[in-house]
């Protein structure tokens, strides 16, 4: 039996992952070439998936299910028909059997007496000892004891087949009892539970292998079937009071030996293939199977000395090999599946070793009662634990929460039982003491471990929730400005959330957010956040969550779905706000322009003097700049520059002033309203000054935007001098104010032979 069986390497995810695993197997190269298009294609296109189920697989599955159920029912019926003495036995400290209870009125009188022998009229009497009520030969350490147990069970079986059985007690009293069929009701809850679990394990194995037949799924099915077999044997043994009916007593040891060894070899074989095929996987697989056969055949034939030790050792070695393979495999490909499986593996191997040690110590003490109890209870718990691990594997990515809780519980109950048995064996505590102690210890362990695990998970999530929302709204704003960058921004957000090893944008349509490929990959469609997005449908593919430490779960998919939804909402909200704002701005601009503009125009026409007329005209032009700025949210620099030049040329040429225009910029930035109107008015004001006050005949404007630094030189050749002494009237004050608004500085200097140069510098425009 194999502790490491928990990490079987077959594709766990029969429904989701099968097409992917098929592709990986057929092309081992793609293990390393990440996110190759074919992989994506296969995971995205799952059209024929349902159709496949309709064929022979479904029929085969139904047949397998029916066969399984029928098998269990027939077994139960047969068990019900086997004759039995209605009595319960316990072992004394010396290894003899003591009648504990009986429903037979003839035996009631003898309760508490030690059984000396069992015989009948036709058959020689035998003296049953503890071995008679030890159900499984598999957990008997001593080779001779095992042979004796098998012989004793065979004899008891034939005795019970007689009409009457004579029980001779140690005090000489004799009781003749008629063995009767035990009836289906007396099989007990444990029988049905174990048989049911066995059936479920078997069915899961069948489903997985039929969903996607491959070497790996076959190995998984082999493990499942083996464990199902083990569970069925355990179920049968749970019902036995005295002697195991033929042929089960004969088959018990070889069958259960085979089950354990097959599981051990299969797990090593599977791990060498999944999640990544390791170099030399074929050799490893052959070696595993060969060594298991080398142990199994002689052991089953009774030719192996210390067969139990060989078995336990062999399985432990297989388990350790599996863990080692997973570590290696994780180094080659950081698939989180390997990590999860490694944890399971360690858990299973260590409990296996603990169980082995407990059984060995109990048997070394030679206290038959203890030994019997250990051998009976320990393996049941362990096999149930292993079977649940096997069961969980295909659903790893479906619900990590449930799995975490369950595996924690299962592991700790195994530890508790092992501890209980150890206490009983080593310290010879009483039954009650040891159970209580073990229970408390394991409960404490469970509480602590659970708290620790949950804390780790929760604190991490809570931290990111807050940050996620913050990021979400920031991204929404960025997406609004650059719709084409949506995928990249979304990838960045999700990267912070899940820390995947890889995150790639592919040009494929994916209908929903999905976890695929054994939970290693999360696929999500990039939402169309804005109307203007005309690009092809894209999807984001993330692999290996939490830097390859974690599998994606359906919870993650749901979270991602919510995040995308929130992002859409935030963008829509932002857009609505922005639209409202721009509508409002437009309305203000229109009102200003229409009402104030018309009045200023009338005022201008009616102006008494040319100066007044010019003053009103400039005011009107300023108003137009203002309303224009309100109406258009941003202005490309190249467009603005063209208008500046035309406007200034017109102004200056009206005053017979020549304009020298030099424009240099390394990229066409988009000016905000403030920048645009600020620069427009600064240039206009400086030119007006050059015309009105300096009396210049030439104005040179040099505009440079290099990187983020803007330099504006306005040079005239007028008679202005000594700028420090200028009175800062409305004009120059306005220039200073606007430059300061833009976060820049302005200074005036004399130039030779005559004229003034104004230098505006804005070091960080954006």
């Amino acid at each position, binding site marked *: 039996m194999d502790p490491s069986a928990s990490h079987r390497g077959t594709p766990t995810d029969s429904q989701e992952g099968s097409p992917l695993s098929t592709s990986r197997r057929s092309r081992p190269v793609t293990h390393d070439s990440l996110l190759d298009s074919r992989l994506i294609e296969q995971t995205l296109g799952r059209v024929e998936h349902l159709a496949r189920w309709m064929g022979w697989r479904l029929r085969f599955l139904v047949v397998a299910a029916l066969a399984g159920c029928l098998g269990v029912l027939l077994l139960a019926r047969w068990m019900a028909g086997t004759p039995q003495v209605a009595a319960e036995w316990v072992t004394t400290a010396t290894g003899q059997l003591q009648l504990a209870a009986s429903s037979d009125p003839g035996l009631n009188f003898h309760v508490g007496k030690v059984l000396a022998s069992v015989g009948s009229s036709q058959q020689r009497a035998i003296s049953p000892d503890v071995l008679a009520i030890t159900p499984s030969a598999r957990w008997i350490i001593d080779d001779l004891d095992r042979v004796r147990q098998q012989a004793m069970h065979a004899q008891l079986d034939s005795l019970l087949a007689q009409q009457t059985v004579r029980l001779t007690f140690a005090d000489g009293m004799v009781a003749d009892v008629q063995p009767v069929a035990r009836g289906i009701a007396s099989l007990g809850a444990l029988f049905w539970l174990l048989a049911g679990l066995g059936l479920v394990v078997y069915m899961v194995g069948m489903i997985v292998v039929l969903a996607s037949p491959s070497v790996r799924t076959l190995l998984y099915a082999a493990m499942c079937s083996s464990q199902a077999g083990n569970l069925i044997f355990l179920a049968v043994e749970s019902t036995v009071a005295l002697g195991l009916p033929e042929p089960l007593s004969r088959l018990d040891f070889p069958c259960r030996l085979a089950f354990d060894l097959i599981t051990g070899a299969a797990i090593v074989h599977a791990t060498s293939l999944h999640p990544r095929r390791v170099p030399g996987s074929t050799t490893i697989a052959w070696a595993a199977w060969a060594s298991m056969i080398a142990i199994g055949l002689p052991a089953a034939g009774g030719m192996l000395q210390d067969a139990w030790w060989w078995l336990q050792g062999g399985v432990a070695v297989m388990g350790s090999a599996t863990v080692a393979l997973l570590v290696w495999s994780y180094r080659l490909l950081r698939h989180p599946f390997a990590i999860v499986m490694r944890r399971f593996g360690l858990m299973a191997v260590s409990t296996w070793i603990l169980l082995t040690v407990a059984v060995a110590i109990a048997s070394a003490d030679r206290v038959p009662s203890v030994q019997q109890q250990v051998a009976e209870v320990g393996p049941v718990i362990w096999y149930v634990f292993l079977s649940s691990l096997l069961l969980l594997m295909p659903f790893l990515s479906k619900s990590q929460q449930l799995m975490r809780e369950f595996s924690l519980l299962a592991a700790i109950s195994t530890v508790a039982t092992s501890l209980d048995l150890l206490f009983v064996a080593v310290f010879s505590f009483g039954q009650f003491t040891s159970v209580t102690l073990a229970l408390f210890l394991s409960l404490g362990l469970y509480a602590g471990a659970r708290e620790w695990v949950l804390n780790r998970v929760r604190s991490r999530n809570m931290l990111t929730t807050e940050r996620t929302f913050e990021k979400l709204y920031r991204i929404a704003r960025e997406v609004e400005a650059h719709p084409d960058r949506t995928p990249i921004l979304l990838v960045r957000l999700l990267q912070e959330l899940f820390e995947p090893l890889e995150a790639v944008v592919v040009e494929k349509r994916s209908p929903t957010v999905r976890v695929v490929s054994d939970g290693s990959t999360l696929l999500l469609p990039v939402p169309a956040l804005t109307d203007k997005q005309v690009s092809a449908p894209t999807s984001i593919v993330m692999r290996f969550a939490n830097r390859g430490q974690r599998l994606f779960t359906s919870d993650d998919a749901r979270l991602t779905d919510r995040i995308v939804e929130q992002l859409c909402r935030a963008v829509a909200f932002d857009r609505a706000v922005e639209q409202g704002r721009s509508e409002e701005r437009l309305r203000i601009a229109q009102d200003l322009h229409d009402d104030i503009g018309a009045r200023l125009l009338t005022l201008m026409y009616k102006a008494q003097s040319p100066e007044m007329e010019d003053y009103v005209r400039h005011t*009107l032009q300023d108003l137009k700049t203002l309303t224009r700025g309100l109406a258009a949210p941003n202005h490309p620099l190249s467009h603005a520059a063209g208008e500046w030049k035309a406007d200034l040329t017109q102004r200056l040429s009206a005053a017979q002033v020549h304009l020298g*225009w030099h424009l240099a910029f390394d990229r066409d930035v988009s000016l905000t309203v403030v920048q645009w109107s600020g620069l427009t008015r600064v240039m206009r004001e400086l030119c007006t000054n050059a015309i009105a006050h300096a009396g210049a005949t030439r104005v040179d404007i040099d505009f440079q935007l290099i990187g983020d630094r803007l330099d504006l030189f306005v040079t005239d050749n007028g008679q202005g001098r000594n700028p420090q002494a200028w009175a800062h009237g409305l004009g120059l004050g306005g220039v200073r104010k606007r430059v300061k608004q833009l976060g820049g500085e302005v200074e005036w200097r004399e130039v030779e032979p005559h004229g003034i140069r104004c230098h505006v510098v804005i070091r960080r425009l954006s």
Partner: protein
Amino acid sequence: MAIKVLIVEDNPVARSFLCRVVRESFSDAIVITEAGDLESARRHVGPLHSERIEASADTFKLILVDLELPDGNGMELLTELVRYPATKIVTTLYSDDDHLFPALQCGADGYLLKEDRFEVLVEELQKIVRGQPPLSPAIARRLLSHFRQGPGGMGALAGLGEPALASGSGFQSSRPLPLGRGAPLDHERLTPRESEVLTYLSKGFTIKEIANLMGIKWFTVNDHIKSIYKKLNVSSRAEAAVLASKHGLV
């Protein structure tokens, strides 16, 4: 023989100012008809039934239309007067392309900015009548994209073709007519020279500067501009016709 001029302008002060500008601009005898709104303007123009109104002594030679009128937008009148044989000029306070471009498409031969000085207006008006319409950088840019996309935009390009129109960055009181879709005909394409001129204009160069840069005479540059105007008018008229036939109006 007196030249008939129609001035449609609701502000009486502005109207008398424009009258002065018109009288100053031309040496001929001039009869000015003033209208304060669209309705009286339509009355003065008379019925527009026939396909093409022959130019006669009765028809107006020059029509100045304000865009913002009490009973509607001046562009409505321009659209109605598409086949009227007069020089039509938009007089407005709006100088941005969002307002002017549709007006030019409606068949205006030029535009005057009402806040300009008297002398400037006189000069501009004379130029327009002589066939030298103004062309601001913003409008040149708009023309470039108009002709590059094909009028009204083509298929998928429509969204990108006229972002300003689509996004409604302007604040005009009434929207321009929806434009029809048509195959790009000859009159919807610019010659390389015309494109070059428009490109320079959009960068703020003056006609003289463009002539220097292109190594041609300034009046050649002007011819290009006139031709561009004509193409814009023709193309928009063609569109209007297509649109009208689609709606069963013709």
